[in-house]
């Protein structure tokens, strides 16, 4: 009991609460804390005291500070996402797996828009196909009419030949 009181009076707890204790001191404190409830109790009081001291030294932040923090947080959260999209898997990632179960290493390319973008050269190719289509159609109509006319002439000649024989 005397030993633990000496320990409590040594200033080791204050050193621990202020974060200046060495690794060995921290280990010793944690070991004593588990064995002696007085240590835990003294630590709780010290932490409350430290908060009280900090409260006394507090400065009210400007009103727009939280907005700055929020903007900065969004930027920090978005940055790893962007890195993620270009293939560098971020260390800090809170995003769950996609519902489809596919790896998020791949980018989903299916867009919501019904439009698609193609190379400009296709404009001339489509125009050439259209013009050629019109030319072929014109030729087809011409030859169809020509053929029809020829057939009619042949029929006419046949009728004339028959009438001449009679």
């Amino acid at each position, binding site marked *: 009991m005397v030993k633990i009181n000496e320990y409590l*009076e*040594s*200033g*080791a707890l*204050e*050193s621990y*609460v*202020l*974060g*200046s*204790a*060495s690794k060995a*001191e921290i280990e010793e404190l944690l070991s004593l804390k588990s064995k002696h409830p007085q240590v835990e109790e003294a630590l709780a009081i*010290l*932490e409350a*005291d*430290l*908060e*009280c*001291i*900090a*409260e*006394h*030294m*507090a*400065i*009210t*932040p*400007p009103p727009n*500070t*939280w907005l*700055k*923090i*929020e903007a*900065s*947080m969004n*930027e*920090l*959260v978005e940055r790893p996402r962007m890195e993620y999209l270009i293939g560098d898997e971020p*260390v*800090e*990632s*809170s*995003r*769950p797996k996609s519902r489809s179960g596919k790896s998020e290493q791949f980018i989903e390319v299916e867009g919501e828009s019904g439009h698609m973008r193609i190379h400009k050269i296709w404009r001339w190719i489509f125009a050439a196909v259209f013009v050629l289509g019109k030319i072929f159609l014109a030729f087809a109509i011409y030859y169809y009419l020509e053929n029809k006319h020829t057939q009619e002439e042949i029929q006419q000649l046949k009728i004339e030949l028959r009438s001449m024989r009679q």
Partner: protein
Amino acid sequence: MLESTSQVTIDHQTHSIHYLYDRHAGKLLGFIFEVVKDRKLAEDYLVKIFSALSLQHNQQGEEGIHTWCQLLKFAKTKLQQLPVEHRGMEAYDRSAMTVMHPSNTYLDRLTEMQRMVFCEVYHHGKTISALSIALNTTEDLTRKTLKEAFLIMRSNG
């Protein structure tokens, strides 16, 4: 439209950081100001430290930050990574302290040695062993001085 799980996680995280901000932002700004001695810089660092909490919350397996002591420990770690012009210990004379802490009755009631030990440990994160070497004293005596400083400030609270 339903919110995605990640959005819900981010919102929850923002709320928990906002809660910490509401409770401890003033104390943390006061602490940072004592370290950097520049109001504008202290405000910038406050934003950086709270923003860094969002990444801390993302890291799996990391212990959460809920109390002032945990937040202070986190802030000290972050401040070590940020450029801070550290004043030498020779600057802790009484007249300088009066100018720098005009309304700080806690620190005013400490002796020069107690104030130096407390400020070096609390604000600048010096270890007891490093401080003992710098002050040319034993570690036990440095711890005792720190404890005395705490007792005086506690009695003033």
